[in-house]
């Protein structure tokens, strides 16, 4: 039991993600966690105005059920399967974030400096989160997939476009990490 409560190493998590992909293929579906956003837009009626959302969204109900499962899984994992969170980050990563004035780096899943909406910077945090989400949603649909759809499923099927998309993920991620995040928080 203690091994379950501890953080799982990469060589446990990676194969379990591959198993997730296999199960969905076996169920006759594909592993991709961003298509549900299109389904949700369609489900609230976006198809009346925009052709892209005019499809039989009910055929994608399975994908919304996975979303519900992922939410429940997150709850179960932190409530029943976790020791207090203390992420074993590289000391250089911690030092960089401390140089922004951040405290308790790695003592929670997400930094309060970004996700806490109660402090003086609440408005700034809200704007950051909405903009970040916008980029994720816009970029995922534009690229035709996200980490699961391209980096895992696409590359597993040896799709060169997926490799190009992942290169794009890294271009954007590196620009954000090395240039924009230091401007926002540094």
């Amino acid at each position, binding site marked *: 039991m203690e091994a379950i409560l501890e953080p799982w190493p990469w060589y446990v998590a990676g194969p379990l*993600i591959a198993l997730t992909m296999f*199960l969905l293929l076996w169920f006759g579906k594909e592993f991709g966690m961003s298509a549900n956003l299109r389904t949700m837009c369609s489900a609230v009626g976006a198809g009346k105005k925009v052709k892209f959302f005019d499809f039989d969204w009910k055929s994608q109900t399975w994908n919304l059920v996975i979303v519900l499962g992922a939410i429940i899984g997150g709850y179960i994992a932190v409530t029943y399967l976790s020791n207090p969170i203390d*992420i074993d980050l590289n000391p250089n990563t911690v030092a960089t974030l401390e140089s922004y004035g951040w405290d308790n780096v790695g003592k929670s*899943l997400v930094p309060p400096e970004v996700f806490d909406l109660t402090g003086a910077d609440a408005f700034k945090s809200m704007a950051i989160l909405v903009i970040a989400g916008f980029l*994720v949603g816009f*970029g995922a649909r534009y*690229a*035709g997939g996200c980490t699961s759809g391209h980096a895992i499923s696409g590359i597993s099927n040896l799709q060169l476009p997926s490799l190009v998309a992942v*290169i794009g993920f890294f271009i*954007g991620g590196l620009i954000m990490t090395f240039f924009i995040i230091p401007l926002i928080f540094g």
Partner: protein
Amino acid sequence: MKYLKFLLVGIFFGIIMVKSEAVSWYRIFEMFRFESFHMYGIIGSAVILGVIIVALIKKSGMHSIEGNAITFNPKDKTWPRYIIGGTFFGLGWALAGACPGPMYVLLGSGVFSILLVIAGSLIGTYVYGLLRDKLPH
């Protein structure tokens, strides 16, 4: 009942994402700074096994649980959408520290402000649908 298996896969996936710390903003930041092997190990080992799984499915002609042959849709062979769309996605991934799967997992883990990220991603998806015909693909 036919949806139960998808609910269970979702729960399984959510637990993996939390327990591997892949839902952590800190881990994504560390990954993009190339300061840990952890995330590369997760994605890399999933992909290596994934390549083997997909090849075996194709070779064996395995059928899905519903009895149909398992098929794979090749991605369109155009390039701008992948590199430009991918770059937008990467900017958001690094800033939110979460991609679409972990967004939902974090909601379940009690990070309620992630709802703003989810709302933003729905808006982003909608705006893509609006602009789709005007964007280079």
